[in-house]
């Protein structure tokens, strides 16, 4: 009993530590004054103001477009390359895994600066296109990273069996491999999406006049007082993310129940 109490306390403290900052952020998005330390009254004014703030909304829109498009593109490229890497012979496979993992370990600032230098060298003016390209590039390793283990889990002979039964390579890819690794693709996509929305350093170096993302806009606001509109926006983002997670969880658990019932009967 006592041990259980200790464990609960530990978990409680742990969760508190994780979520207190977000709770404070959410609470102060409803604060009447601009203060970040004193509570003066409840209001929805910041949400209303946010809806009229063209600058922040455009930045949020840019961020979303870049994140979604870049994650889609990276998912396609990453999945195909993961399949390719999986069927390489052992030594080449190890080399390729190393090469694709390197960008993840590599500090973002190095990636960002080197991309900027590359664009300058190629005389490309940075803007939306270069930002998108940069995001696709840094997202690919995450996809490969999460698809490769799923491929390793797959039954080695599944592809051979499919081909024995008359599938060609395309059919094998779409009907056998993709359904097998789809959880990996999905989690890779979500990870890429999160990293894309989040990214500051690489966007800072590769973005230009047509593509300011939200993190950059918020950073530029810090010279003066950051407005609680940012709290409001962050609250909205947090709630949306929370909803997505709940929906996914709900869907998954229903699917699992379904499978259990089918297997049981």
């Amino acid at each position, binding site marked *: 009993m006592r041990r259980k109490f200790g464990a609960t306390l530990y978990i409680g403290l742990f969760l508190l530590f994780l979520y207190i900052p977000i709770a404070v952020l959410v609470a102060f998005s409803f604060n009447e004054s601009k203060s*970040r330390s004193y509570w003066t009254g409840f209001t929805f004014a910041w949400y209303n103001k946010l809806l009229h703030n063209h600058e922040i909304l455009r930045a949020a829109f840019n961020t979303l*477009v870049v994140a979604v498009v870049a994650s889609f*593109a990276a998912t396609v490229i990453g999945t195909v390359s993961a399949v390719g890497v999986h069927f390489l012979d052992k030594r080449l496979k190890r080399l390729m895994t190393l090469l694709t993992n390197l960008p993840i370990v590599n500090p973002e600032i190095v990636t960002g600066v080197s991309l900027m230098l590359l664009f*300058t060298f190629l005389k490309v003016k940075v*803007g939306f296109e270069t930002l998108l390209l940069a995001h696709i590039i840094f997202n690919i390793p995450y996809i490969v990273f999460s698809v490769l283990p799923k491929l390793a889990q797959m039954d080695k002979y599944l592809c051979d069996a499919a081909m024995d039964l008359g599938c060609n390579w395309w059919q094998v890819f779409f009907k056998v491999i993709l359904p097998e690794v789809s959880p990996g693709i999905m989690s890779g996509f979500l990870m890429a999406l999160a990293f894309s929305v989040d990214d500051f350093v690489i966007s800072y170096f590769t973005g230009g006049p*047509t593509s*300011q993302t939200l993190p950059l806009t918020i950073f530029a*606001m810090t010279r003066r007082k950051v407005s609680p509109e940012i709290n409001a926006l962050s609250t909205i983002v947090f709630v949306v993310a929370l909803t997505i997670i709940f929906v996914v969880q709900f869907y998954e658990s229903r699917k699992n129940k379904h499978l259990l019932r089918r297997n049981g009967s």
Partner: protein
Amino acid sequence: MLAALAIVSALCVGICVFKNESHGSLEKQRRSINVFNWGEFMSNGSDGLLNVNQEFERLTGIHVNYTTFSSNEEMYAKIKSGSVLYDVVIPSDYMIAKMVSEGLLAKLNFDNIPNVKNIMPNLKGMVYDPQGEYSVPYAWGVVGVVYNSQQINKPVGGFDALWDEELSGDILMFLNSRDAFSVALKKLGFSFNTDDKNEILLAAKELRRQKKLVQAYVMDEIFDKMQSAEALIAPYYSGDALVMMRDNQNLRFVFPKGTNRFIDAACVLETSEKKEVAEQYINFLCEPRVALANALSGGYSTPNQQAFEMLPAEIRNSQIAYPSDDMLQTTECYCFKPAEIGELMDALWIEIMVADEDNSIWVMPVFIVVCITTTISIGIARMRGRKQRR
């Protein structure tokens, strides 16, 4: 099968979105200009004021790609890298001088900017652009001392009060080398545009002495700290001081003699391919109603005479936002400093920030060396253990 279909359709959607987006932005680039401004420095419609960029788009059909920066140096680095194409930038005084000297800014064609006549006469021919060929003032302000008159009973005259031992622990200070050094230099009675290394070393000494008294080095945290009386005295910009005073009636603001007046001005870049449109945009910024909206939303003083006359009386008559010409005569603008002076200041500033009186500077290196040796010795011990086991 379903998953495959989903992914294929997702792919299609992705490609479509990508195509549309790049197509759209290409289209926009044909009739668009790129504007680079300070963060939170332009009216964007969130206060019920004019949305400046949207209005410009509505009137001219030219799309404004508006992006923001948080410091002059950040902006300069971006532009100097040569990989970005901006048309209009709004840097501060000393940065304009630097950019002019490096040929980054274009001479303006004032035939396209008739509204320049609205600019206050006392803002013409400033040191950073003596002929007024490269820039059109956008906003300005003065550095002064904000203090809490309820808690501080003696008169505060100038920067000296920031070294007052009785206020120890209640003093805030700028968190950037340029502003901090200018306060110290002014306190010593020097010009903050000095090239004399000895004067800068003396100022550094002054700052080091002050460090014991300072509660915190801040930029935007100053609002909360001053409004809640957590700190009692701080140097800051006049426009922001007005915002603080609105929330805390006990706050007062004084101009030390010979203090800094800063001016941010709109310029067109030499690399711009749409100089005429850029000038049209600057002209639009000089329209009284636009300047008025920007002044009201940013809180900084407007250089626009017409807009000034349209301001509410309490702001117009404020000695803080719009000090008398006599007072302004005594102020000084930042000039562009030779690189070595700037580097010396930065180096001294880092030294001041890092050095802690209580801890010797050796603590960190020694700690790191100890960590490394422990790691190595553990590694060696393990290897030996493995050998013995064999």
